[in-house]
């Protein structure tokens, strides 16, 4: 099963939930950290890195001897990355999205593709957990190609837990697309609710089954619960604010190490998600709320 852990608001506990969930499961499990702009799952999983690969996107290289200055490459480019004036084309590799359109459309075969590095992919292991993450190069604006490279390590057997970036834009959509289920981690505050609503809107567009996990659940107010109830969204789990967990977190220590009772809680969460997915999604399920026992 492929489960993406997303949020809306940053800092709600995506990485916390993703890492503790994957380590609570047995068998063939893996964690893919797709927050390539700021990967942090490795701080808690502490994997032994086994390989590092450079990941690039294809950018155009023009053979000026073959170019007839027809201008078709500049016309097809949506990003101003290749511009055909009366003379030979100019390329701006930093604007290129690697769509391959210019190379395809060139009638003289003057455009070949060369790789421009956008980041690296690291693969490793932490106990029984296979670990993969991407590190986007500093100054690089485009994460989806690197996210797609990390997602190549998704496998159908066992559990694939994907740690998503915060927010609801391009990188998040590239991450959660084609997952079996999305856990939306939120906090019971006005900011949490605002961004949760945006995330719900996004996930509904994608049509993926999803549920909400309320972290630090005894802080704030009831508006998130009221919203979920009104929207028919299942609250899968509530985790109370716990200073011991917070202190451990600040040292890179997992919550299941200081509160081992949560291991069973996460296993049950996984099983419940499995039931939802195999019964065809969580649309129309009544509001219910499971409290996690610490």
């Amino acid at each position: 099963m492929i489960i993406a852990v997303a949020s809306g608001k940053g800092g709600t506990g995506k990485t916390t939930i993703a890492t503790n969930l994957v380590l609570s499961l047995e068998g063939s499990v893996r964690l893919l950290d797709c927050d390539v702009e700021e990967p942090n799952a490795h701080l808690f999983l502490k994997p032994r890195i086994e390989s590092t690969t450079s990941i690039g996107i294809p950018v155009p290289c023009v053979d000026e001897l073959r170019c007839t200055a027809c201008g078709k490459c500049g016309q097809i480019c949506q990003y101003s990355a290749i511009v055909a004036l009366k003379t030979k084309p100019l390329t701006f590799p930093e604007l290129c999205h690697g769509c391959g359109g210019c190379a395809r459309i060139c009638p003289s075969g003057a455009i070949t593709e060369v790789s421009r590095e956008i980041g690296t992919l690291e693969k490793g292991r932490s106990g029984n957990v296979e670990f993969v993450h991407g590190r986007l190069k500093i100054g690089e604006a485009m994460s989806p190609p690197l996210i797609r490279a990390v997602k190549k390590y998704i496998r159908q057997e066992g559990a694939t837990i994907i740690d998503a970036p915060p927010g609801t834009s391009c990188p998040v959509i590239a991450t959660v697309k084609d997952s079996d289920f999305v856990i939306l981690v939120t906090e019971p505050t006005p900011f949490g609710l605002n961004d949760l609503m945006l995330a719900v809107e996004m996930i509904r567009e994608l049509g993926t089954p999803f549920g909400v996990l309320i972290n630090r659940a005894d802080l704030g107010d009831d508006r998130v619960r009221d919203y979920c109830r009104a929207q028919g969204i299942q609250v899968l789990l509530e985790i109370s604010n716990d200073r011991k967990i917070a202190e451990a977190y600040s040292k890179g220590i997992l919550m299941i190490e200081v509160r081992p009772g949560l291991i069973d809680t996460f296993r049950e969460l996984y099983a419940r998600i499995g039931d939802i997915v195999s019964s065809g999604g969580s649309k129309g399920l009544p509001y219910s709320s499971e409290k996690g026992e610490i």
Partner: protein
Amino acid sequence: MKIVITSSGEAMDSQVDPRFGRAKTLILFDTETGLHQVVDNTQNLNAAQGAGIQAAEHVSRLGAQCLITGHCGPKAFRTLQAAGIKVIIGAEGTVTEAIENFRAGQYTTAEAADVDGHWM
């Protein structure tokens, strides 16, 4: 000779727009006939990226040989240079004044961009 001046409005007494790529309006002026044409640039004003490149391409297509503006970014400058268009930066005042200054030979052409790009 055709020249382009970036303008904040459609009238000849509009202020020169200090931006090039995201200028609201381009005034195409023919020094031989004294006639001008108002060219809308709002598509590039609103572009997510490549505004300077697209504006430069547009200036090239208009057949201009010289651009007069306030500032010019690196990608726009590179594109204009490849198109053989001279770039004058630091122009101020109205479009009419800019044209007079140009005719009086008061401007020097730029050797390089004078500002960074906005996006990357």
